[in-house]
Every structure is written in C-alpha cells, then in structure tokens.
C-alpha cells in the first residue's frame, strides 16, 4: 500500500510544518507556551471548581459548615486558654504574700514589723495596709458604703503586703520565706497568691494537650468528610474522567480539579470558622468586659489576631487538600477506560 500524500487544499486547517520556526528559539518559546498553558489551566481549574461549588450553594454550605465547626471548636478552646493565660500572667506580675496580722496589733507595732522585714535580703518591699485603710478601700470598691458604716467595729485585720526579693522568688525560697513569716507571733495567716498561679499553669499545660489532641481528632474528621465529599464528586464525574483519560489527559490533569475542590472546601470552612469565632467573641465580649470591670480588671477577651487567623484558614485549606488527595489517590485509579 502506498501512503497517500497530504492534500493541502483539502487540509485548510492543517498548518504546513514549514510555517513553524525551527531551532532552539522555537523549543524555548514552546516550552514557555506550555508553562503558560499549564498556569492557565491551574487558574481556570481553580476558578471552575469554585464556581462548581457555588452552583450547588446549599450542598457546599453544608460541607463548609461541617469544616467550620470542626475548625472553630479547637480554636475556641485555644482562645479560651490564651485568655486564661493572660489573666494568670497579670496576676503573676503582682505575685505577693499577704500577711494577715492579729486583730490586737496596733499600727505602730505593725509599722515596726514592716521596717524589720523590709531589711531582709529575701524581701524586696513591704507595704502596710491598716484596718482603717482596708475598710476605706472596701467601701469604695464594693459600693456597700452604707452597710459598712452601720458596723459597730472594723472587722478587717491589718495586712502586710510582702513583695519577695530575688532570693525569695524561687518556689523553695518562697516556701522558706513563708515559714519565717508564719513564725512571727503577731501573724495569724499567710497567703501566697503564687500557689494559685502555679496550679493554673499546671492546669493550662494539661488543657493545652487536650486541645491539641482534640484538634488532631477534628482535623482527621475534616479529612474524612472532605475525602468522602470528593469521592462523591469523582463518582459524579466518572464519564468526564473516562473521556479525559481517553483523549490523553494525564493523571495530574484529572486530579487537579478535585484537589482544588478540596482546597476550596478547606479554605471556605476556615473562613466560615473565623466568622463563627467573630460572632461568638462579639457576643461574649460585652458581658466579659462588664464582669472584668466589676472586678476592677482591665481584662478584655482577645481574639485570634491577624496572623493566627491566617494560619487557621491556611491550616484548614491544607487539611482540605490532604483529604482530597487521599480520596483522589484511592478512587481515581479505579476509573480506567475499558
């Protein structure tokens, strides 16, 4: 059989090979073209898969909400922890020992004791709060002025506020100092606020691990949910995948739209989680500020901040991508033209 020569007239759409420039320049520019086309396919696939999600808004919103809730839960706990930590730090700064004196101790006795203690190496500063001053403070702070006025005698003892020095700020030093202060006959009770703060820190260390474990579990949940959603999307587009494979689509080409879909589910869920958090913080912020004011604290609820918000959304996006990747790896290879 003799090969038939190409008939140019009948092949108006077939560019003659000679029309193409030859040589290295050509291959370079064609490589550039290929790269451009590859980039173009990425952006069109990204946009297409997003539009595809928006075309079924209710269905997509459900997946986004599931992801958002799974992301928001550990984020809420994280925010709660950092806020509690902030309270802890502000108390730790003013870590001091409150030494309650015997009711019979006079102001001059207390003043003498204050001077003696102030000379100790392990004490930085001692402040004396007389029963009268304490009562005045209580009257203004509590707003119970009338009730206090009606009392026959001042129920409050004198207090020495001891600020430990450098030697007294270690747990062991603090315990030793506490023993010394307690042995003073004029003293009825010694309270160290530090203990409370230390316990809080221990509690926080445990809580932080719990939050991390919970976040890990919920991330696994997100991966499974998105993986399952992508599996359904792959089933729905089975015909298209077959045709694409038959006309020479590589696995990467077939994979791409599904990976973008997973990414959009993750990113959308992350953004929605931020919205949920903002609503929650707005809702709680007012009452918390009011509560803090009552306790004479300038404490305010702190949100995630810009960087952490960005990290949260990106992390959600990566989790979504991972879920899609696993689903695609498991299910796409089974769809081969037969």
């Amino acid at each position, binding site marked *: *059989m*003799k*090969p*038939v*020569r*190409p*008939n140019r007239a*009948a*092949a*108006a*759409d*077939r560019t003659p090979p000679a029309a193409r420039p030859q040589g290295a320049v050509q291959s370079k520019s064609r490589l550039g*073209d*290929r790269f*451009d*086309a*590859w980039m*173009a*396919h990425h952006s069109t696939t990204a946009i297409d898969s997003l539009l595809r999600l928006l075309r079924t808004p209710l269905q997509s919103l459900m997946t986004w909400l599931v992801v958002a809730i799974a992301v928001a839960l550990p984020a809420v706990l994280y925010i709660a922890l950092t806020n509690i930590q902030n309270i802890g730090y502000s108390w730790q700064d003013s870590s001091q020992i409150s030494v309650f004196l015997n009711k019979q101790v006079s102001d001059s006795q207390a003043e003498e004791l204050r001077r003696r203690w102030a000379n100790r190496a392990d004490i930085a500063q001692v402040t004396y709060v007389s029963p009268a001053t304490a009562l005045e403070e209580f009257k203004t702070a509590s707003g119970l002025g009338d009730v206090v006025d009606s009392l026959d005698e001042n129920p409050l003892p004198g207090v020495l506020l001891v600020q430990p020095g450098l030697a007294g700020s270690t747990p062991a030093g603090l315990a030793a100092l506490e023993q010394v202060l307690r042995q003073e006959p004029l003293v009825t009770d010694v309270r160290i606020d530090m203990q409370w703060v230390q316990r809080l820190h221990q509690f926080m260390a445990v809580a932080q691990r719990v939050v991390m474990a919970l976040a890990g579990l919920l991330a696994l949940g997100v991966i499974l949910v998105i993986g399952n959603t992508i599996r359904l999307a792959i089933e729905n587009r089975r*015909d*298209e995948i*077959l*045709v*694409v*494979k*038959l*006309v*020479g*689509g*590589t*696995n990467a*080409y077939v994979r791409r739209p599904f990976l973008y879909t997973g990414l959009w589910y993750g990113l959308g869920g992350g953004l929605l989680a931020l919205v949920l958090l903002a609503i929650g913080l707005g809702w709680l912020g007012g009452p918390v500020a009011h509560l803090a004011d009552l306790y004479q604290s300038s404490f305010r609820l702190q949100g995630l901040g810009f960087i952490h918000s960005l990290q949260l959304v990106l992390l959600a996006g990566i989790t979504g991508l991972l879920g899609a990747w696993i689903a695609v790896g498991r299910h796409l290879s089974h769809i*081969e*033209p*037969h």
Partner: protein
Amino acid sequence: MIRFDNVSKRYASGHEALTRVDFEVERGEMVFLTGHSGAGKSTLMKLIMLMERPTQGQVFVDGRNLNRLSSGQIPYYRRNVGVVFQNHQLLFDRSVFDNVALPLQIAGNTPAETGRRVRAALDKVGLLDKEQQNPIVLSGGEQQRVGIARAVVNKPSVLLADEPTGNLDPELSAEIMNLFRQFNEVGVTIMIASHDLELLKRMNKRVLGLSHGQVAHDGVLW
C-alpha cells in the same frame, strides 16, 4: 503505521479474544475491521488505544513498541491517536465547542490556538453554527460528527472508529464515511470497525475480517 506481531489477548476470565494476530497497516491507509460480534474487533482497537495490554506478542504504532510504554507515557501516546465511539462519549455538561476543545486543553494549547483549531474542526464536519449548543439537543448524526471533530482536532496521525455508523441510517452513514475519507486523503491513517457489509463493499477499501480472534480475511471486499 500500525503493526501487530503475533499478538494474543486472553482476558482474566480465560476468554481468548485474539489469537496470534499478524497484520500491518501502512501510513495514510484506510482499513476496515469486520467480523461477527465477539470476533475481537473491540479488543484489537483497545490494544491500539492501550486500554488493554496484549498477553503475548507486540503492537507497534508509528514505530513505537507499545509494550515498552510505561503507564505514565500512555496519556502522551493517546494524544496522537484519535478515537470515535459508537455512543459518541460526548459530555452533556458543556457546549459543543468545549467538547471538541477538550483534547487541545489537555495537550496544553493556548486559548487562541484552541479556538482557531476547534472552529476549523467544526467547520470541517459542518457544525460551526452549533458550537455554542449543548450536544444533547443535536441529532444522532450531528452528535457523531461532534465526536469526529473531537477525535481529529489535535491532528492525530492515527484515527480509530468503533462502529461509528452503528446507530445511523444509510444516508447519514454515507455522510460520516465521506468525512473519514476526507481525513484519510490528507494523510491520516484510519481504522474503522464495522459490521455493515454493504457499506464495506461501497467504500472499496482494504478489509480485515476477524473470526474467532484470528484474521480470516485481508483485502478488498467484492
């Protein structure tokens, strides 16, 4: 262009679809493949498309031994082989234009180049005015022509067609065959599976007759 060298294909079920098949199709030739159903026509086409691998023997297309192609190379190989299916395999979620553009987009052509070549292909099959329609509203013959446009749009050197006129009346069949003949005239190697003997006689081309997985006839039908 297409060479089968002692090719056998036995499926996992134990059914032997092809037994020691030898033939060669020259570059630019137009060949018909015929035989009763189950004679191995589809299997033979699937071997050329690399949808199946032979259990024995070798298949060469354009001088390349298909046994040596890794699964990663298959997509690039398929871009040089156009396929027309009996059931068209068109996608009804997009326009005629986008259906035909698919192979070009996959091969990484620029949108401008894609548009130009899709219109040229649609013009060739006479459907340029239908490019924005959904293929579901087209008639069977028109759908088949869209399938042909998609198969030839990236100028493959080999064109395979599996019962392309199976569902069409004789007049439309002749029209479709005429299209294939035109592509063959510009140098495309074409292999068409068909059991329509009247059509094969009219076309007056080389016919490979398969029977029970073996080549029983090779030559023009009278």
